[in-house]
C-alpha cells in the first residue's frame, strides 16, 4: 500500500503528485491527508501542481458538445418520427 509507505516519514514531491487525485477525491486517510497538506505548505511547486490539476479538471469540464449538423438534426427528427409512428 503506497499510503502506508510514507506514514512514518515526510512526503516527497514525487509521491505528492501521485496523491493528488486521492486528495481531491477525499479518499486519503486523515493522517495521509495531514502529511500531504504539510508537504504542500512547504512546497510551492507541489502547491502549483495541485492548482494545475484543479485547473485541468475545470477546463476539461468547460468543453461543450459540438453542434449537430443540420443533416444530423434532420436524421434524428426522422428517427423520432419513426419511433412515434411505431407507437401508434
Amino acid at each position, binding site marked *: 500500500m503506497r499510503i502506508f509507505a510514507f506514514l512514518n516519514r515526510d512526503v*516527497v*514531491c514525487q509521491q505528492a503528485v501521485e496523491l*493528488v487525485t486521492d486528495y481531491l477525491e477525499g479518499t486519503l486517510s486523515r493522517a495521509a491527508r495531514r502529511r500531504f497538506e504539510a508537504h504542500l505548505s512547504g512546497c510551492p511547486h507541489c502547491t*502549483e501542481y495541485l492548482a494545475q490539476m484543479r*485547473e*485541468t479538471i475545470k477546463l476539461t469540464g*468547460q468543453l461543450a458538445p459540438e453542434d449537430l449538423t443540420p443533416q444530423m438534426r434532420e436524421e*434524428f427528427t426522422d428517427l423520432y418520427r419513426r*419511433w412515434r409512428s411505431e407507437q401508434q
Partner: protein
Amino acid sequence: MDSDAELVRRLRSGDEHAFTGLVERYHQPMLQLAASFVPNLAVAEEVVQDTWLAVLRGLDGFEGRSSLKTWLFRILVNRARTTGSKEQRSVPVADPEPAVDQSRFDGAGGWADPPEHWIEAAEGRVEAGKLAHRVRAWIDDLPARQREVVLLRDVEGMSSEEVCTVLSLTEGNQRVLLHRGRSRLRQLFEDEFREVR
C-alpha cells in the same frame, strides 16, 4: 435543461424538440465514448444510432432510479461492449506510468524541473473555443480506459458512483484511471503553453 421526469414526459408525448435537444446535448459525448470500445468511427456511429432508438423504445421502462444521463450512457456502453472490442480490455488498470516523468525529480524525490506556470495563459482559451478542439484531441488520445473515465467524470461531470455504474468499475480502479488521465492532460496543458512562450 428540464428535470429528467419532465423531459421523459415530453419525449413520450411527441415533443420533437425535446428529442433533438437531448441528442444535441449527448450525441457527441456518446460517440466519443462509443469510439473507445469499437474498431472505428463508423461502427461507433452505428452503436450510437442504435442506442438512441433503444432509448426511445425503453422510455416507458425508465423509472428514474438513476439519472437519465446515467441511463443513456449505460445503454450505450452495454451496446458498445457487445458490438465488439477494439483492444484487449483486460489491460491492467494500474499501469506503472507515473503522473509526472521521473526525470523531473532529483534523487531525493524533490522537483528538479518544477511545473511551469500555465494557468493564467490557459484561462479563457478553452471557453473561447481556441483550445477546446485541442483538449478534445488530447482526450481522444488517452488510453481507452482513462479516456472513458475522464469523459464521464470531468467532461460530463458525473459522480464517481455514476461512472462506476456506467463503466462497471470499482471505485479504486476508477480513481486510478482518473488519476492517470488527469495527470496526462495536465502535462499536455503544460507542454502546450511551454511551446507558445
